[in-house]
C-alpha cells in the first residue's frame, strides 16, 4: 500500500516535471480564444457552443493524456530497466500498476478541476452570466389515456407516441422522486412536435390541457402557464404548444413552463402529469424522456463541468488501464495505437448499430458485430457535453453510473496487466 502511494506520487511528480500539464494550459488558452471569437446566431447558441467547447477541450486532453501518460511511464521503467531496482524492493507488482494508474488519474483530476475553473471563468467574462444547468427529473413510465379515461400501456421500447385520433386523447407520465415542493410549486417543462395531418396545410401549434395529480384516485389539478414561459399562451386552463424538434432542448427557449402546485405531488415525490389534446387538426408527437420534465437547481456551471469531467475521467481510467496492458508487453508506439484504437472503436459503436439495422449482412459478420457491441465499451453512452449544452445538469448519479459501467472494464484490464507483469522476467 505504501509502495502504491509512493509510485502514484512519483507519477504525479514526473507529469509535472515532464510538463504534461502544458496540455491542459494549451486547452485553456484555446478555450479563451474560442470564448472571444465565438460567432453564432444568438447569444443562447453561443453560450451552448462555449459549454460544448469547454467539455470538448477537457475530453480531448483527458483522453489523450490518459492514453499517453501511463503507457509512457511503464514503458520507460521497463526499457530503462528502472524496473530492476523497483521490483528488488518490497513493492508488489499490483501496487506498482495501481500506483501508476492512480498517478495518472490524480493528475487528470487536478487538470479537470483547473480547466473547469478556467472554462467557467471564460464563459462568465464573455457572457456576463453563466448558464445554470438544471437538475432534471424525467418520467419513469408513461401510458396512453383515452377521452373516456381508458388506460393503454405503451410498449417499453417505443420512443415516441403520436396523438392523432379524436380530441380528448392524451398521454400520462409518472414522475417519481420529485424534489420537495416549495410553496409556489415545482417548475414543469413541456414541449412536443406539432405537425399538420394534411401536408398541404401549415400547422405548428396545438391547444392542449395539462393537469397533475398525486395519484390515480386523486382529482387532477389543471396547470396554468407560468408568466416567464417563452410561449404557451394565456388562456386559462389551456396551453398552446408550438412545434419544437427533438434536438431543440434549450430549457429557457424551447419549453412551455408550468408550475406544479404542492398539492399535486404525493409525499413520496410521485406526480402524474397528463397532457390532453384539445385541437383536432394537428398531430402531436411526444416522447417519454424529452417531452415532459421537472427541473430544479442543478448546481452552478463549475460543479457541473467538474461532474462532467468525472464522467470523462471514468472513460480515461478505462483507456489508461487498457493501454497499460499493452505497455507491459509491447513498445510505446504499439501501446498508444492500441489505446487510441480502443477509443475510436468505443466511440463508433453507433455505426455498428446502424449497420446491423440497415445492412444486409452475412450471419457470421452479424454475429461478430453483435459480439463487438457487447464487448467494446460504449464511450458515447454518457453524452455529457450535449447534456450540459441543453441545460441539463450532470447529477452525481450519472457520475456513479459511468464509473460503474467503465470501472468494470478498468478492473479487468488492470487485472490482466497485473497477471502479465507478474509473469514477466527482468
Amino acid at each position, binding site marked *: 500500500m*505504501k*509502495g502504491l*502511494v*509512493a509510485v502514484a*506520487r*512519483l507519477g504525479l*511528480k*514526473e507529469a509535472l*516535471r*515532464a510538463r504534461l500539464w502544458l496540455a491542459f494550459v494549451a486547452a485553456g488558452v484555446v478555450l479563451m480564444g474560442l470564448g472571444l471569437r465565438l460567432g453564432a446566431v444568438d447569444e443562447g447558441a453561443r453560450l451552448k457552443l462555449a459549454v460544448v467547447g469547454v467539455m470538448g477541450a477537457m475530453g480531448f486532453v483527458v483522453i489523450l493524456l490518459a492514453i499517453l501518460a501511463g503507457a509512457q511511464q511503464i514503458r520507460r521503467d521497463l526499457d*530503462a*530497466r*528502472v524496473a*530492476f*531496482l*523497483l*521490483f*528488488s*524492493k*518490497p*513493492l*508488489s507488482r499490483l501496487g506498482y500498476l495501481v500506483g501508476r494508474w492512480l498517478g495518472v488519474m490524480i493528475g487528470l483530476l487536478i487538470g479537470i478541476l483547473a480547466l473547469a475553473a478556467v472554462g467557467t471563468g471564460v464563459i462568465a467574462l464573455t457572457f456576463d452570466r453563466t448558464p445554470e444547468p438544471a437538475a432534471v427529473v424525467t418520467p419513469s413510465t408513461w401510458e396512453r389515456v383515452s377521452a373516456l379515461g381508458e388506460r393503454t400501456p405503451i410498449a417499453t421500447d417505443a420512443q415516441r407516441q403520436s396523438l392523432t385520433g379524436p380530441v380528448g386523447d392524451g398521454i400520462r407520465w409518472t414522475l417519481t422522486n420529485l424534489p420537495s415542493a416549495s410553496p409556489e410549486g415545482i417548475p414543469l417543462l413541456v414541449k412536443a412536435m406539432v405537425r399538420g395531418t394534411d401536408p398541404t396545410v401549415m400547422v405548428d401549434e396545438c391547444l392542449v390541457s395539462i393537469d397533475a395529480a398525486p395519484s390515480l384516485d386523486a382529482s387532477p389539478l389543471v396547470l396554468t402557464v407560468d408568466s416567464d414561459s417563452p410561449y404557451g399562451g394565456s388562456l386559462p386552463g389551456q396551453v398552446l404548444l408550438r412545434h419544437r424538434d427533438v434536438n431543440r432542448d434549450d430549457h429557457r427557449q424551447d419549453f412551455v413552463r408550468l408550475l406544479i402546485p404542492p398539492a399535486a405531488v404525493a409525499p413520496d415525490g410521485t406526480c402524474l402529469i397528463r397532457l390532453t389534446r384539445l385541437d383536432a387538426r394537428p398531430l402531436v408527437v411526444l416522447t417519454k424522456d424529452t417531452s415532459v420534465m421537472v427541473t430544479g437547481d442543478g448546481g452552478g456551471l463549475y460543479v457541473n463541468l467538474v461532474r462532467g469531467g468525472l464522467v470523462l475521467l471514468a472513460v480515461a481510467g478505462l483507456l489508461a488501464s487498457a493501454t497499460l496492458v499493452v505497455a507491459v508487453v509491447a513498445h510505446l508506439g504499439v501501446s498508444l495505437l492500441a489505446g487510441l484504437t480502443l477509443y475510436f472503436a468505443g466511440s463508433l459503436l453507433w455505426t455498428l448499430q446502424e449497420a446491423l439495422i440497415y445492412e444486409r449482412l452475412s450471419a457470421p459478420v452479424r454475429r461478430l458485430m453483435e459480439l463487438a457491441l457487447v464487448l467494446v465499451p460504449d464511450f458515447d453512452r454518457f453524452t455529457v457535453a450535449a447534456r450540459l449544452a441543453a441545460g441539463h445538469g450532470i447529477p452525481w448519479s450519472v457520475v456513479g453510473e459511468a464509473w460503474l459501467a467503465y470501472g468494470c472494464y478498468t478492473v479487468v484490464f488492470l487485472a490482466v496487466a497485473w497477471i502479465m507483469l507478474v509473469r514477466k*522476467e*527482468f
Partner: protein
Amino acid sequence: MAIQTPVLRTVGLGKTYTDFWGRPRLAALKDLTVEVRPGEVFGLLGPNGSGKTTTIKLLLGLLRPTSGDAFVFGCDPGDRVVKQRIGYLPEETYLYKFLTADETMSFFGRLFGLDEATIRTRSDTLIRMVGLEHARRRHLGEYSKGMARRLGLAQSLINDPDLVILDEPTSGLDPIGSAEVKDLIVRLKQSGKTVLLCSHLLADVEDVCDRIAILHQGSLLEVGSVDELLRNDDRQVVELRAPDAAVLEAVRSAAGDHLVSVAPPRERLESHFRRIIAAAGSQGTSRS
C-alpha cells in the same frame, strides 16, 4: 556458536534464457550450489557473460530459475519480507532522471515503508557518505556517471539492509570512490552485514572478500576462502626494514639456491594515487 541459517543458499540453481516462443536459447547458469553465511563478504567472480548478474537476479526474484532452488534468509527470493532486508545496487545505475538525490532517497525509502523522519536522517548520512551533499538538490539528469553510481550506492542502503548485493559497485567510480566503496564494504562487514560482491577488479575482491566463487560460462569453477585459494605454500616472503648492502648480501648468501629475487617492494598504484590525491586535497584546502 549455534549453526546459523545461511543468508544465501542455492541448490543446483540453473537458468536457461528462452526466446519469445519459449524455446531455450542459452544456459546462462548451470547447477550452482553455494552458501553465503551471515556476516561474510562473498565475492562472485567471472569473465563477462559468465552468469554473475543472472545469479543475482535469481536471488532477487527478478528471474525465475529453470532448475534448482534459491533461498534468501531461508525463504523464497520473491518474498516481500525478504526484500525488506536486502539492499541492491544494479550493475548499471537505473534511476529517475527527473528526481533530485533527496527525492530519489525518499522515494526508495517510502517503498520500504519507512517514515519521513527515518528517511531524512538516513538519507542525510548516506548522501554525505557517498560525497554528494553539494549536488543533493540537482536533478539526476545532470549527474555524471560516477555521481549517479554513488547515489545508487546510497539508495541501496536506505533500508539499513542485512544483506547488501553489489553488482560491480566500482564501475564508473574514480579511484578515490572505489577505495571508499572498499572501505564501506569493510565497515558493513564490521557492523555484521552480509555482502555479496561482483567485481572484475580482482585486487579489490582480494582485499575485502572472505570467500569467493568463480564462474565461467555459467558453471562454478571454484569456491572457497580467499586465503585458502591464494595461499602458496611453496614460497615465503621475507620483508626487511631499511636494510643496508651488508644485510642484503647476508640474506642472499644464507638463502643460496632457494632465492628467487631481492628487490625493494613497489607501492601499489592505488595506495600511491590515494596518497597524492589526499596530499593535493589538503594543500587545496589550506590554500583556500
